[in-house]
């Protein structure tokens, strides 16, 4: 079982645009990934699940996956979470 623990870097937490980008990336992963915050574990592909974690800026979350490609998938997703996705707003013209 591959595992990564990261701190959510986005200013608004794992909501809105950051949540969308994270779930989109999880959908592209070749293996099912789960994300845990505190006691709660949800599939990373579930937008509602990810939102319901209530992860804010600075919350520590743990990603887990199994099988071939798990390490790469977790690296990608962990890297995404550790960036401030709110600051990368394409509409900020």
């Amino acid at each position, binding site marked *: 079982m591959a595992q990564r623990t990261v701190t959510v870097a986005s200013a608004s937490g794992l909501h809105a645009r950051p949540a969308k980008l994270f779930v989109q990336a999880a959908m592209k992963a070749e293996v099912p990934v789960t994300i845990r915050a505190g006691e709660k574990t*949800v599939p990373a592909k579930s*937008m*509602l699940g990810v939102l319901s974690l209530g992860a804010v800026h600075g919350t520590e979350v743990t990603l887990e996956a199994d099988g071939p490609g798990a390490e790469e998938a977790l690296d990608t997703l962990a890297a995404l979470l550790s960036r401030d996705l709110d600051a990368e707003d394409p509409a*900020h013209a």
Partner: protein
Amino acid sequence: MPDTLAGLGVSQGRAAGPVVRMAGPPALPAPRPVTDPGAETAAVGSALEAVAADLTRRAATARGEAAEILEALAMIADDPTLREDAETRARDGLDAAHALDAAFAQHRDALSALGGYLAERAADLDDLKHRAVAFTLGLPMPGLPAPGHPYVLVAEDLSPADTAGLGPDVLALVTERGGPTSHTAILARGRGLPAVVACRGIRDVPDGTLVGVDGATGEVAVGLTGEEAELIRERDRAERARLAASQGPGRTADGHPVKLLLNIGSAADLVPDGEGVGLFRTEFLFLDRKQAPPFEEQVAAYAEVLGRVESVIVRTLDAGTDKPLPFLGLPEEPNPALGVRGLRVERLLDGVLDTQLEAIAEAARATGAQAWVMAPMVTTVEEAAAFARSARAKGIAKVGVMIEVPAAALRARALLREVDFLSIGTNDLAQYTFAADRQHPALADLLDPRQPALLELIAMCAAAGAEAGKPVGVCGEAAGDPALAPLLVGLGVTSLSMAPVCVPAVREALAGLTLRECRERARAARE
């Protein structure tokens, strides 16, 4: 005589046509005995897929924030956990509509319980539920109607999801709720649609009733005869014809010329109006690139604009960590608005600016057009001088800089010894002058373009321009506001660059005042 309802006019113009109210949520019928749970399970899946597909389709035609919101909603409709929950309920014997209703309700309650931002998302779940349930019941999905003829859209309020999908059939917008900064108002102004918000009683007006909407006064005349409606349409056509007939160069009532220019992101934004392009935002061409756009491709993209407009001010790439261009691969930084943005990117990346300047020069040679080039986020005279040297070495005739940083505004006179023109970006200049994040909802008053300190800086730049005999324009939001444009002209600005839709109204506003009156407004605003 028609009745009149009063609301708040938020977007000027007059329109008349039949009311079509936005469909409300579907009523859930009594549970139906189920004979084939397999069929109900399949119906649940089809409904969620249909809702997600509809939202994805609308996201593809929307832009910016609206597109993001629609995509996020589509992803919730597509959520595997939600689908599993609803399908399980259908397999256990509920009909599709009730299975969906129960599954959405469960997730909605879970989000509500978390409070804050997530409680607001609970409303999104209700919206999605209504769409999915309507689909299984064979009812029209709530949301924008498509009656197949022009209509006045009436709603309680419009969400970003609704406004993103407005088609050309919509003549005007009237909502029962909302205010001057609501989505409805912003959207309507951007599209030039007459709009009235906070209009009580409008939703009691039956579909098909002819109404007349005045987006300036906020009055909605209800129960017009066909003739009365036609009269309003005629007046509106005459007004539009008058605005269209006013085509031509911008000038004040006494003939003082003020160039009216267009802000564009690509050739697709061009309209046959205005006296050229005042701001060509080149970064919009390459927002989604992972690799630097090759030289030839850049030449082609610039030539497409230069080939169609005689005079164009091309702004070099305006990007930074707060406004990323993926192909630049800039490192993250703790304070992006104060970090490596605009011309400053040159400090970290060699060659990007050089290639772009070369491509602009080549496109100008190929089309025979006059390309002026300016750099964003210039701070010092040295930066401006270095930029001007590079641009001129490539054969670019007219070189300018944007004034977005107070330090640059304070040195306008010295800047104009190095470059040929200035263009003031009022949005960023306000942000940096008032130390107020331009996205911050609680600081809007500090970002008001009427703030005297901002006007002072604009006046300094304009005075330096007059002294040097060089153009000084404004290309921020303020330039496209008919109420502010005369004030800017009064400060001494020589051109105004704006979204194409704003040009006729600004032209009209200037034509109604003498230069002296504009100066009087500017003087009063600075007191």
